[in-house]
């Protein structure tokens, strides 16, 4: 059976096609001004790679903050639900899944059946999400992908205001003028974010196997800071930014099997 999951995030759209619950292909596109059109492109991309047509797909489920604009979707799944499904599909023993995207951070608790049982969300504030790292990278005049490796060279962190992206930016500019080293400032950015995220996770309780997904999971600097704060080494899948799409596709598989109402 072939199913498709798509995650319409604020910055990017991710698509996964599953063949009998094994990943067959992936597609992605920037959300831009018209997420519906961008999603169609990402789906096309994934279909081409899998060598199939849209009519071959049994069920399509959408998730993500723009899920109401998803094309082809038969139903939707909450982002927390998708996180739980994907996290424990990838790491069967995992019971805590942290998902950090461009504009939102979530911690989800799930049971042995991969169902979400509890969650904490940071929304409406950029300081706890990927946007924070992006803004600080801009202020530091460092490429986003270089922030992580740079921060690993630091021995300590310079203090910055982590409660707000805008205030943090001003702090970074003042630190640059005080000639603080860039690695130390970068380290401070990740430590500050890891602080916010770990306090979210602690509200749910830390289980030994913690999974980190979402685009920010690809950042080695953030991962190092988070591991230090949580006191455990988080597990990261190969395509952390596709986990929402994966969760949606897995949900599509189980919904396709349900008797039609």
């Amino acid at each position, binding site marked *: 059976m072939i199913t498709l999951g798509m995650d319409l995030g*604020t910055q990017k759209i991710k698509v996964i096609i599953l063949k009998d619950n094994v990943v067959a292909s992936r597609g*992605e*596109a*920037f959300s*831009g*001004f*018209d997420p519906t059109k961008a999603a169609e492109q990402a789906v096309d991309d994934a279909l081409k790679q899998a060598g199939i047509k849209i009519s071959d797909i049994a069920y399509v489920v959408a998730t993500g903050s723009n899920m109401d604009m998803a094309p082809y979707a038969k139903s939707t799944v909450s982002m927390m639900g998708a996180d739980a499904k994907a996290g424990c599909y990838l790491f069967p023993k995992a019971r805590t899944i942290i998902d950090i995207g461009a*504009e939102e951070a979530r911690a989800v608790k799930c049971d042995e059946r991969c169902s979400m049982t509890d969650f904490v969300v940071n*929304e*409406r*504030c*950029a300081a706890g999400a990927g*946007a*924070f790292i992006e*803004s600080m990278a801009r202020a530091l005049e460092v490429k986003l992908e270089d922030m992580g490796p740079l921060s690993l060279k630091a021995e300590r962190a310079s203090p910055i205001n982590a*409660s*707000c*992206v*805008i*205030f943090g930016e*001003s702090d970074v*500019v003042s630190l640059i*003028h005080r000639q603080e080293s860039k690695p130390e400032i970068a380290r401070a950015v990740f430590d500050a974010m890891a602080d916010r995220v770990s306090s979210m996770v602690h509200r749910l309780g830390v289980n030994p196997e913690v999974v980190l997904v979402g685009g920010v999971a690809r950042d080695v600097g953030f991962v190092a800071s988070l591991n230090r704060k949580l006191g455990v080494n988080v597990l990261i899948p190969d395509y952390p930014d596709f986990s929402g799409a994966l969760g949606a596709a897995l949900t599509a598989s189980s919904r396709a099997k349900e008797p039609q109402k």
Partner: protein
Amino acid sequence: MKEPSTVENAVEFWRWQEYQRIMPGKSWKSKDLITAGVDVGSVGSKAAIMVNGEAYSWGIIRTGSNSPESATKALDYALKGTGLKISDLKYIVGTGYGRVNVPMANKAITEIACHAKGANYIWGPSVRTVLDVGGQDIKAIRIDETGRVVSFLMNDKCAAGTGRGMEVFADLLKIPIEDIGGISLKVDQEPPPVSCTCVAFAKTEAMGLLRKGWSKEKVLAAYTRAMAVRMANLINRVGLEKELVITGGQSKNIGIVSRIEVVLGVKCLPMPNWRDNGLDPMVAGALGAALFGKALYEKAQKS
């Protein structure tokens, strides 16, 4: 995967006008007590020159990435064409976000005290509540009839609802920042305020609403309304007492001012006609600083 192309703006819509003013009909003599206040804000740097405690000239520029340089530039701008030199200034007070970085200052004083003093100077002794809305700050200040601070509250954890968000909107909607307030009032019915005023999210928030088919006017109205509600909450927490005035860059945003009046049910004291030789509420902090400079100089002379 292709990065969405960003349209290169020939015009930078967020850029507000830098200007300098010498009060007409005013002059200085060498025996006068001439002081200056330099207010280095996060977005704008303002310098004011006072002759015997009366506003004489001022200059407003955008703050660059280097605070000491911005302070120097603003003061030079205020002095331009006055015949005054920095050495003629008896006392200089630095204030604002970058106040410790004003190299020529004899002393640094917080912008809370300076805005209170400046508001008292601009509007007179009846002012009891001052709302200062700058690029990154919102401050609600209670003052007495002499312009002294009684109590204050500020947004120390979050920049939501500050001028920076307005700059983002100006650029995104391609509307000059000076026109934003007026345009936000061109709606038949006030839309509900946006749920999120985080400056970092302002762009996605606005894009979402535009996608829903909202007009630029409606988007601005919803965002401005949400900002006004945040500011009104701050004023209510510090305790509103009449008369109310607004200082800082956002005092020029008619969309903000009129909505605060609606939310609080109180009229602000009328805005001086700053375009036509009146005092500019954006310079309140620098004027207050220059007044402190005069007092500090006189005190030093006595002892």
